[in-house]
């Protein structure tokens, strides 16, 4: 067994941490408060050449694995940018995976180098008002009309749609009751968010406000056939390929938030004096933080194992799901404890822990809820009958 990161991986960590040092608490507090996309941060990451970390070299990326991608996003979240920072670049880091694996060469040449350079923002459109975790009940429909499709429907929660030029869009090309399996008949596109045909409205939300999440109303959007990813009717299967790495990335982001929240709590616990001594001297403060540390460390190990398995080309569903579950839980718990440690100040926006708390809560729900992870482990790993 070897628990050491490689030299290159260690370099990634240090370089990213160094790059982001200038984006301090005030920067993120203001972006979050003003609902402003973190352009400067995005530019710094793009200029550093990090956006194309997993994009194949022939398309202008570095062709690195998920281990490196998770280290990057963990460090980004840990820098204090939390989910505002991670979500701003999340789609670029690994979201193009279905295109990389299943897209036509032409589509890849048209889009991937721009992603790697940073001048193409993309969002991911799956969720609909009537289809949350139950993805196959989406109804957004793409009708074939000669050399293009005409798409209509409604998406919800689409992060970064406001800032994006393109959308990776999941549609139905055959209705659910017309196909043999509910997973059949779904088609994936990477296409322009033509503002004449698409209405985008931000959803007021509890946190991570530097990056919008939106309702997207699509009305007869023309999508050229060349924008289709892979074959018609196979879209769901293409997404499945990306599920495990997606879970690992989210896990890494949750872990990063948990780490930074804990760091801040420890700092405050040392500095703040009440009843004539640092509050961190109380077991009531110290133990919950020590407990949070233990849970973060344990969760991190599962994450590392999951990414290692994936990069080795080995099955990793169990580990990917477990990593998401444990990291989301440990990250949120750490943020919650950090808030408690700060007492009343934890509730003020002067300290970043309230922001971490709001952001860490998200990973218990999206992109896959803790309950669905347990469904996976219960039925796929333990072999119990599927409960739903």
């Amino acid at each position: 067994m070897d628990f050491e990161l490689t030299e290159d991986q260690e370099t990634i960590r240090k370089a990213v941490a160094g790059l982001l040092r200038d984006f301090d608490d005030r920067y993120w507090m203001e972006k979050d408060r003003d609902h402003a996309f973190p352009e400067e941060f995005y530019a710094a990451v793009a200029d550093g050449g990090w956006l194309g970390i997993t994009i194949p070299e022939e398309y202008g990326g570095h062709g690195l694995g998920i281990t490196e991608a998770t280290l990057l996003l963990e460090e980004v979240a840990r820098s204090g940018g939390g989910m505002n920072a991670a979500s701003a670049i999340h789609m670029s880091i690994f979201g193009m995976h279905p295109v990389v694996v299943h897209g036509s060469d032409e589509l890849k040449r048209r889009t991937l180098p721009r992603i790697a350079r940073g001048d193409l923002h993309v969002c991911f459109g799956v969720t609909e008002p009537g289809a949350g975790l139950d993805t196959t009940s989406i109804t957004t429909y793409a009708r074939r009309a000669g050399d293009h499709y005409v798409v209509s429907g409604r998406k919800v929660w689409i992060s970064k749609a406001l800032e994006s030029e393109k959308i990776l869009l999941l549609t139905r090309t055959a209705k659910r009751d017309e196909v043999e399996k509910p997973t059949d008949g779904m088609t994936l596109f990477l296409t322009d968010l033509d503002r004449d045909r698409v209405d985008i409205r931000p959803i007021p939300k509890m946190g991570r406000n530097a990056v919008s999440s939106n309702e997207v109303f699509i009305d007869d959007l023309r999508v050229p056939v060349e924008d289709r990813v892979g074959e018609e009717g196979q879209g769901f299967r293409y997404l499945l390929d990306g599920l495990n790495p997606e879970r690992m990335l989210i896990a890494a982001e949750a872990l990063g938030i948990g780490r930074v929240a804990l760091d801040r709590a420890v700092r405050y616990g040392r500095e703040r004096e009440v009843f004539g001594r640092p509050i961190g001297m109380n077991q009531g403060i110290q133990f919950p933080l020590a407990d949070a540390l233990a849970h973060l460390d344990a969760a991190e190990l599962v994450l590392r194992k999951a990414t290692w398995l994936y990069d080795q080309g080995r099955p990793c569903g169990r580990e990917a799901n477990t990593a998401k579950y444990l990291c989301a839980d440990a990250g949120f718990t750490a943020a919650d404890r950090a808030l408690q440690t700060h007492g009343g100040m934890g509730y003020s926006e002067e300290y970043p822990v309230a922001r971490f708390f709001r952001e860490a809560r998200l990973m218990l729900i999206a992109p896959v809820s803790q309950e669905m992870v347990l469904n996976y482990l219960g039925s796929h790993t333990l072999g119990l009958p599927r409960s739903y």
Partner: protein
Amino acid sequence: MERDEFTLVRDMLRAFATRFRSGSADDVKAQTRTDAQRALDELGLSGLRRTSPPAATVQECALLAEEHGRQPLTTSLLGTALLAPELLRLLDLGERAEPVHGDRPTVALAGDLRFPDRDAVGLVAWDCDGADTALFVHAEGRVTEHELGTPAPTADLLRGVRRASAEGRPVGRLTPGAHQRWQAYALVVVASELVGAARSFVEQSVDYARERHQYGQPIGSFQAVQHQLADATVLVEACTSATRYAAWCLDSETPGRALTAARVAKAEVNSSAVEAVYAGMQVFGGIAQTWEHVAHLYLRRVLVGATTLATTADLLTVLAAPEATR
């Protein structure tokens, strides 16, 4: 009962309990069991719920069950003094067919100690020290009387449990309302005893945290210990309130509402009493892991108690159902 009268009864029970408590598992012997039961019988508590109107309210009986639960006792207060007499009283209100043969019956339960479903097998006579027969309430309300057999295995070292004969003599049938009342009452009485056990054990661990010194100071001065005990106290208060409220409902509300309150109370007790005893055991450290210590007597009582009559899963399932179908 008048207040003074009840205080007197409770003090008598308390004095009895202090005298006959088991100081350790090794104290639990056939002779000491018999002596203790005889002493309890002499208090004459089986008359409290035998007449209509009863001499004592359900709330008073629940407090006595709590008192009994506070000490590690082998005696049957619940089965023979509180439960069987109430069952006979409820039967008198409906179709009472035949007189019972036993002088001192207890109650019988399904083999897994739960309320029976339609095809319950392997009946056991529960809490049967001092009992000569056992009354069994079938799922549909029919009541039969059963002979006692050989001792049945149980993890609760204090509680007397015996196999009961498969065939029983018909005694009568509870009306639907009386059946609900019976179930509610049984849940409340059993829950109360567990509440008493948890409360007393947490109090004992608080005392221990004051006396036991490590690193030159009482372990109770460590916040981690203090907080565990504070949490345990909150749990005990939660299950006490839920149980006492259910007892009040039996005295004041319709049987349906009382049954709902009793189910809530038992579900709360099933988790809170066990959690509270876990916390207490943690505070006792290594000594609580020894055979001589009373900790395991309490732990066994609450663990078995949490599955007696109704498990949390049983209760939450009915409580989650729409009210009309319960």
